[in-house]
């Protein structure tokens, strides 16, 4: 059930918010997919209040009474915010993130907090201290990551929509693996206040939904300037949902066919070609663009994201919050708390970050990567001189088996080859399911648009979604 279907049922008194929420909580209780870290104790009470509002004609928005799951790096009072890390396993949220406030002001019911890769570092949700999340479409396969629990919860009907965060593809890649819609909005469009930081020049909150229209509904609620977040953008309020019509006639799609050389999975290649045919049939023109620099984006990403992570995670010292080692010496307390609290991938990224920032390597890696980031931005901006959106596969493969890639961090990093460039250029992108392979695993197609042009992004995604039915 999607948001629009749920709204109709609620309006026609065929169900109540309390029923919807209880249904989600029962499914969460029964599920053995490890998609959820904790449930929200106030969900049923909030649902009853929503039903009372509806009964008296005072519903707050289209989201009033809709059960939502949020990633476990987003603070909500009354819940623990663990980031799926042993470091924060008992960490109480003492304030609400702005996105939580916005959802609750719209009447949405936050029912649970989703499993994730520890501190959002990973592409398979296997880096969680609480164990891997399993893909609802095939329990032996990964959900993708890092917002694996959020994507799986939507795909597995544990909620109607969810929130993830996307630093290098962490909303779009699991969306692709689980067959749902995942949006990474323009940098600054959604406030990150109250969201645990990983890499601050890249992190964005984004919705995961069953449909493109639901994604637009969520963005209508979440977007907007927030004075508590100094990278928040001052933008005119957009009515994204009202403007989704799927009309793309006369618009241009940039496509670099050489990118498919990076894709070994034949189904992914076939589906990209079919998606292009579908867009052409609907009146779009395909234009060749040069995205050869995407090849270097993974390297730039792992330098810059790790550098920022090593700085952001400096605050985890065992003094003010989280795990504290049982040591009576301050220097040892830092060392032991961090060593005991962080998992392997988080340690790897902190080490890499400190490497590229350290004396003797700073110019060659960090500074150089910033310059290459600028080159990536320039090349993509040149593409947008010729087209309205850029099309790529979201991922080079469909969801892989649990454990298949854990032996090689590098192989895992390469999963994000099509998604990481988008975070570096601050532009929005969306992953839409389009077809499945012979094992019934979904393929995702990614559209990238110019900054703050989510409207065009939604229309292309809507058009493709109609072709997927």
């Amino acid at each position, binding site marked *: 059930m999607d948001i629009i279907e749920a709204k109709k049922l609620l309006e026609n008194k065929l169900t109540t918010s309390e029923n919807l929420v209880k249904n989600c909580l029962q499914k969460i209780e029964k599920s053995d997919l490890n998609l959820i870290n904790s449930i929200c104790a106030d969900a049923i009470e909030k649902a009853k209040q929503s039903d009372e509002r509806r009964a008296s004609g005072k519903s707050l928005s289209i989201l009033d009474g809709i059960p939502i799951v949020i990633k476990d790096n987003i603070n909500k009072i009354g819940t623990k915010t663990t980031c799926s890390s042993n470091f924060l396993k008992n*960490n*109480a949220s*003492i*304030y609400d993130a702005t996105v939580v406030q916005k959802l609750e002001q719209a009447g949405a019911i936050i029912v649970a907090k989703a499993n994730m890769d520890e501190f959002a570092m990973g592409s398979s949700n296997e880096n969680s201290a609480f164990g891997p999340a399993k893909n609802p479409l095939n329990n032996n396969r990964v959900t993708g990551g890092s917002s694996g629990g959020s994507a799986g919860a939507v795909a597995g009907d544990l909620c109607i929509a969810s929130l993830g965060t996307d630093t290098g593809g962490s909303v779009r890649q699991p969306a692709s693996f689980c067959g749902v819609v995942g949006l990474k909005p323009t*940098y*600054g469009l959604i406030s990150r206040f109250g969201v645990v930081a990983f890499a601050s020049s890249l992190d964005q909150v984004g919705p995961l939904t069953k449909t493109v229209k639901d994604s637009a509904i969520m963005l209508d609620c979440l977007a907007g300037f927030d*004075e*508590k977040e*100094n*990278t*928040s*953008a*001052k933008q005119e309020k957009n009515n994204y949902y009202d403007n989704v019509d799927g009309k793309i006639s006369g618009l241009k799609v940039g496509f670099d066919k050489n990118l498919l050389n990076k894709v070994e999975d034949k189904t992914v290649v076939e589906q990209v070609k079919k998606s292009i045919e579908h867009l052409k049939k609907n009146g779009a023109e395909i234009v060749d663009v040069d995205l050869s620099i995407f*090849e*270097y984006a993974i*390297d730039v990403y*792992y*330098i810059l994201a790790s550098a920022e992570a*090593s700085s952001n995670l400096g605050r985890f*010292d*065992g*003094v*003010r*919050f*989280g795990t*504290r080692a049982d040591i009576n010496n*301050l220097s040892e*307390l*830092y*060392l*032991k708390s*961090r060593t005991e609290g*962080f998992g392997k991938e988080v*340690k*790897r990224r*902190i*080490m*890499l970050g*400190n*490497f*590229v920032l*350290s004396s003797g390597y700073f110019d*060659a*890696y*960090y*500074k*150089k*990567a*910033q*310059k*290459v*980031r*600028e*080159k990536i*931005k320039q090349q993509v901006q040149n593409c947008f001189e010729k087209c309205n959106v850029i099309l790529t596969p979201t991922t080079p493969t469909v969801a892989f088996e649990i454990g298949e890639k854990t032996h*090689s*961090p*590098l192989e895992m*990093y390469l999963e994000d080859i099509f998604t990481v460039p988008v975070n570096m250029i*601050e532009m929005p992108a969306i992953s839409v399911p389009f077809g499945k392979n012979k094992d019934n695993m979904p393929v995702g197609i990614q559209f990238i648009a110019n900054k703050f042009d989510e409207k065009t992004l939604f229309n292309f995604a809507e058009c493709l979604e109609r072709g997927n039915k």
Partner: protein
Amino acid sequence: MEITVDLIEHLARLSKLEFTKQETAVFKEEFADIVKHIDNIQKINTDDVVCENECLDAENELREDKVLTNIDRSQLQKIAPEFERGCFVVPLVVE
């Protein structure tokens, strides 16, 4: 570049992390693979790029400097490992 055990141990000290000898050995191999890959960026000519340490377009929007309702200090004891009379307790630092 060559990744040595000395470099890994140096980075661990900077990172306030501790590894066993076995972990260091595994880490060294994985790290060498990653560094070899990220070295790819040296192939790109960036002589024409003017930005230095930060190339983001987004500008910081600083709010007006006024006191807002903030987190109540008493709330901090919910998240602090050790908290007494409104302060975080740390091990003895100065004798």
